[in-house]
Structures are given as structure tokens and as C-alpha cells.
């Protein structure tokens, strides 16, 4: 930080400005100076200065130090740490477009030992259609009972079942009398079809009863079937949930549920979608999911990203805490930020040829907003790279980026195979699965390689994936992206 810069002046505000005023002033100034809008010379520099000013003033600890004229802000003082890495140390000066990958990592600093506990506002939405009867429903009952037992004093719970219609089994309430609630859950039985919209709507209504409270709002959806005709309505609900800070996590059991649809609902809200093949996995998943929510440092982490002119964001993929594609939007809800689980996002940018005079290439500017009990925290960040001088050899890519891209490529191969099938090209899908299998093999993933090979055969003979194999491959290649 340079002492002779007046950050307040840069943002055109008084040194006594409130946090909200700073944020407003930043948005105003950044909008005016953004290279997209401001075509004057020096616009990029001005924009970077505004970014710098805000990145200091937006964090109370840093602002205090700045006000006192101190330069000794240690990154350790900050409650949250941001780190970025790139696939290349610089941008090539070439007359064709180029790709550069960036990883942004955000985690709660280690020195934050005691977190301000946020109570949970949880809705469990259970599919109790006929196909759930027997072992499946039995396991779900015990898993729900586990959650009820684990609830804290302040936590709220509701439980909704759905088949052709929804039933509010437990309206939103505290879990202070767990046995009573567990007994009620024990009476559930299975009947009817699967209409996810009914359950989702009723579950969200229960959560919304306490939406104003300082809670971690979460809906846990469990289904084993296909929903028909109400996908679009569900999508709308998910969008609304995301806006209101409700995260939806979804769990698919068996092989009949619609993975594309479930993924969309979950990623829209920053939740995770998981495929459960063995029933024994249900209980640990339930428990982990709720325990993670109870460790939330921020009840919602929101990412805003805006690319520079001549730069396109081709894709954004979340690697941690649970790998999943991110929706193609400027504002993305990422769910809770946990004390011991960082979030890590991989961005893929396409950069158009750069002007000869440019020495720093701005890729994108972004901001994480943490919704905390003690108030929102804004963490702006810039993604920029210097240009490489002619003949300069780029440094090798960091291992973490290379591996992430390597595994993402495999995940995309199975997605493309599905696309081939949708377009009536089973031969291409077959070849892709053969390629996928050999790549998996060369990475030592024998089990997945074998499944990919079986699916290739299945595609060859029947022109479709097998219902099991498709999900095994999809969620299997996705999990490869988890480090270690």
C-alpha cells in the first residue's frame, strides 16, 4: 500500500463513510471507470486504483490500519484469505485468441478459532413415492432421526414428504423435543408418484417462515425418481431460493432420477448434488451435510465476476468443497463458507489479441460477499497478468491447475458423449467413451476405466448409456477433481 494515495478521494467519499457508503461509492466509481465503458486512455489504471482503494477500505481491519497510517497489515489479520493462481505466468503477444485458466481460492483464516455460531433453518424434503418403500424409506427415516438428534438449541427443522402432492409432516419448529419429532417421522409410508415441485415448494415455504432470522437456510432434497413436466417450475423456485439465500442440496438414490435436472437445481443455489448408490452412504451423508452447515463461518458466499473487454469467461467450475459446474451468471451463489473447507473455483478465460502498448492484461474483476452474523464482508479481487515479452518462455503451469484441468477434461468427455447421443451420434459417443477409458487407465483409475469401457459397449449395442453406468461415470469423473 502506498502512503501517498488517498483511497477515500479515489472513491470520492468522506473518511467517516459507513461500510454501506463505501460499497455504494465503489460500485458507482467502478462502473464509471470500467474499461468496458470508459474508452479513454488510462481508464484501466484508474479502474485498478479504484479496485485497490476498495480492497483496502472494504475490510474493517485493513481500513483501521490505513486510517491510523499503518503499513503493517499482515494478511494473517484478515478473517478470510484469498489466493489466485494462473495456468501461465503471462499473456502471449500473439495475433490469435488464447486461453488462460485461473484458480481462486478462498478460505477462513486459521486464527479464527471460535466462530460465531449461526443456527440452522433446515427443511428436509423427502420423496416418499412408491419406489421408496422398504429399505430406502427405512434408511431415510433413521438418517432424518440422526439429524434431529444432532440439532442445536437454536436450530429449526421442518420435514416435508412428497409424491403426487406434498405433506408437511413437521412444520418448521425447534428441535428441543427430538423424540416427539422422531416418532412422527417413524410413521411415514410410501405411495404415489414423484412430483418434485410439490415438495420443493412446500419445503421452501417452511424455510421462508423464518427467512428474516439470522439462520443458515438450507433445504435437503432426497429423491429416487424422475419428475415430469414440472422441471421449469422447479428451476424458477431454485432461482428464487438463490436470491433469498436458501441453499438446496440434493441427493439422488438409485439410477432413475434425472441427474441433469437435480444438478441444475443444486448448483443454482450453491448447494451440492450427490449420487448415492449404496444405501449405507445415506446416513453419513446426512450427518456430514448438517455438521458442515453447523460450522458455517458465512451463511452464504456470493461471487460476482465481470470480465474485461476482449475477454470472455468460457466456463467456471467449482473444485471445492464439492466439484460442480457453476451457472453462467454474473452473480453466483456458492452456499456456506465453512471454517475448515475452502472454496476453490477454476475459471477458463478466452483472451483476444492484445494491443502493443498493453503491459498488464486485466482478465476480470470480481468480488466475494460473505453474509455473516456480524455483517457482510466484501472481498474484491482482480485477475490480471503481465504480457510475456517476445521469446520469453512461459513458466510451467502450477501442478494444482494442470491436474484440475486434466480431470475436468475427463468429466467433459462424458458430458460430450451424452451430447453426442442426444444428437443421434452414437458412433461418436462410443469413440469418446473409448478415449475416456484409456485416459482413465493411464491415470491409474482402473475401476472407472472399466465402467467407461462397459458404457462404450452399451452405447455401441443400444445407443444409450446404462442408467447406473451413466451416473457412475458422471459423478466418478467429477470426484477425481477433489485433491488428494
Amino acid at each position, binding site marked *: 500500500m502506498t502512503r501517498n494515495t488517498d483511497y477515500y478521494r479515489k472513491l470520492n467519499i468522506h473518511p467517516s463513510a459507513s461500510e454501506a457508503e463505501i460499497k455504494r461509492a465503489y460500485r458507482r466509481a467502478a462502473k464509471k471507470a470500467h474499461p468496458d465503458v470508459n474508452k479513454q486512455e488510462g481508464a484501466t489504471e484508474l479502474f485498478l486504483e479504484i479496485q485497490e482503494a476498495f480492497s483496502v477500505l472494504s475490510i474493517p481491519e485493513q481500513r483501521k490500519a490505513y486510517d491510523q497510517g499503518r503499513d503493517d497489515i499482515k494478511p494473517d489479520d484478515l478473517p478470510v484469505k484469498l489466493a489466485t493462481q494462473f*495456468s*501461465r505466468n503471462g499473456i*502471449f503477444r*500473439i495475433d*490469435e*485468441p*488464447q*486461453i*488462460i*485458466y485461473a484458480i481462486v481460492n478462498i478460505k477462513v483464516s486459521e486464527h479464527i478459532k471460535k466462530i460465531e455460531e449461526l443456527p440452522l433453518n433446515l427443511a428436509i424434503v423427502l420423496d416418499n413415492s412408491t419406489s421408496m418403500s422398504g429399505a430406502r424409506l427405512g434408511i431415510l427415516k433413521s438418517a432424518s432421526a440422526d439429524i434431529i438428534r444432532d440439532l442445536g438449541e437454536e436450530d429449526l427443522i421442518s420435514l416435508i414428504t412428497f409424491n403426487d402432492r406434498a405433506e408437511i409432516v413437521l412444520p418448521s419448529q425447534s428441535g428441543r423435543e427430538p423424540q416427539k419429532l422422531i416418532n412422527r417421522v417413524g410413521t411415514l409410508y410410501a405411495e404415489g408418484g414423484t412430483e418434485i415441485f410439490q415438495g420443493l415448494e412446500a419445503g421452501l415455504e417452511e424455510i421462508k417462515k423464518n427467512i428474516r432470522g439470522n439462520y443458515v437456510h438450507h433445504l435437503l432434497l432426497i429423491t429416487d425418481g424422475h419428475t415430469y413436466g414440472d422441471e421449469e417450475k422447479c428451476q424458477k423456485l431454485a432461482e428464487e431460493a438463490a436470491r433469498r439465500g436458501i441453499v438446496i442440496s440434493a441427493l439422488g438414490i438409485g439410477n432413475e432420477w434425472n441427474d441433469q435436472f437435480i444438478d441444475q437445481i443444486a448448483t443454482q443455489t450453491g448447494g451440492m448434488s450427490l449420487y448415492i448408490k449404496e444405501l449405507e452412504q445415506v446416513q453419513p451423508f446426512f450427518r456430514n451435510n448438517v455438521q458442515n452447515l453447523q460450522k458455517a463461518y458465512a451463511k452464504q458466499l456470493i461471487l460476482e465476476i465481470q470480465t474485461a473487454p476482449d475477454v470472455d469467461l468460457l466456463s467456471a467450475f467449482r473444485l471445492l468443497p464439492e466439484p460442480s459446474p457453476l451457472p453462467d451468471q454474473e452473480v453466483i451463489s456458492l452456499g456456506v463458507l465453512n471454517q475448515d473447507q475452502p472454496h476453490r473455483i477454476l475459471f477458463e478465460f*478466452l*483472451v483476444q489479441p492484445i494491443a502493443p502498448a498493453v503491459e498488464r492484461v486485466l482478465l476480470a474483476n470480481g468480488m466475494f460477499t460473505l453474509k455473516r452474523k456480524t455483517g457482510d464482508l466484501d472481498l474484491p479481487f482482480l485477475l490480471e497478468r503481465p504480457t510475456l515479452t517476445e521469446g520469453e518462455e512461459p513458466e*510451467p*503451469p502450477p*501442478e494444482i491447475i*494442470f*491436474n484440475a*484441468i*486434466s480431470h475436468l*477434461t*475427463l468429466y*467433459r*468427455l462424458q458430458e*460430450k458423449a451424452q451430447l453426442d447421443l442426444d444428437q443421434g451420434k452414437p458412433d461418436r459417443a462410443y*469413440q*469418446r467413451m*473409448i*478415449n*475416456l*477409458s*484409456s*485416459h482413465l*487407465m*493411464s*491415470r*491409474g483409475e482402473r475401476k472407472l*476405466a472399466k465402467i467407461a*469401457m462397459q458404457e462404450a459397449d452399451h452405447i455401441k449395442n443400444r445407443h444409450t448409456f446404462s442408467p447406473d453406468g451413466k451416473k457412475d461415470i458422471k459423478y466418478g469423473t467429477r470426484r477425481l477433481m477433489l485433491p488428494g
Partner: protein
Amino acid sequence: MINCKICKNQEYVGAFFCSECGSQLLSDQELDIDTLVIPSRDGTTEPGQAKNPGELAEGLSDFGLYNADRDQYLEIPSSHEFTIGRFVEGQVITPDVDLNPFEAYDQGISRLHATIRYVPKSQNYFVVDLGSANGTFVNGYEIPANSEVPIKHGDKVKFGKLEFTVLIPE
């Protein structure tokens, strides 16, 4: 743009993998990523070591390829890396190991079919298909051309139609 050597698809500069077939676009050497899961080619020929005839390359002494149909071992040179193929009169680049004694032509062996490589650092063996006409298979799976595929004791490696069992005694 970069051309994928395997499926000829075009990718932007800066990409590391072909989005169509999944192959790595740049060689490990070009990327210089020797700490990665995919071992680098750098470690394979340490100066003066592999090229030194008479001296057995470390680790390679026991490596064997066994053909069960003929109950026959393949004669393998003692270097960290050798090519396998079918020798033809007048050929400019000849394979280190000639499969003509195994009726190479009928078995669909290309002139330069594959490379076997030993990486001392990780003590792993790899097979690389050199773009052969009839392919190289590891345990029944066809491997993509020009990428290193690890092989271990007991694996079945097939060049065209000719199958060998990998023997790497402990």
C-alpha cells in the same frame, strides 16, 4: 490455434488438453511438468547413462515381454527407452526391437509401432503408441497415440494382434 495430434481438432493457444478426444496437447517436455502425475520425459534419458552400451540400465535388467502363444520372450535392449516395430529394407528409422520373427506383417505391426520407456525417478514403465495403424492395447483397452500409459507386472500389452505379458519381477 493448436492442432490435436490425435484427432486433428483445433484448440486455442493456452489449452492443455484436446476438448474432443481428451489427449494432452503439448508434450510433457514442452510443459516441463515433471512433478505431475504424468511423469516427464526428462528423467528417461539421463546423459551418458542410457546411451552407454554394455552397462545395464538401472532397473531395466529384469524387464521382460513374454508371448504366450509361442512361449517366447522378446529380446530387449538394455536401455531406458526402446522402440518396437517391423523392420523393412530401406527404412530410414529402424525400430530397436524388430518383431519380424513374430510374423509382424500378419500381426499388423507398424514399422515404428510403440515405445517402451522406463522412468527411474518414479520407477515406472510406460508404453507409448507411436500412431500405429492397428493400435496398441493395454489389458484390452486401446491407448491413444503419443501418450504415456503406465504398465506393470502382469499387464497384457498388445501391438496390433500380437500380445505380450509384461514381466517385472520384484
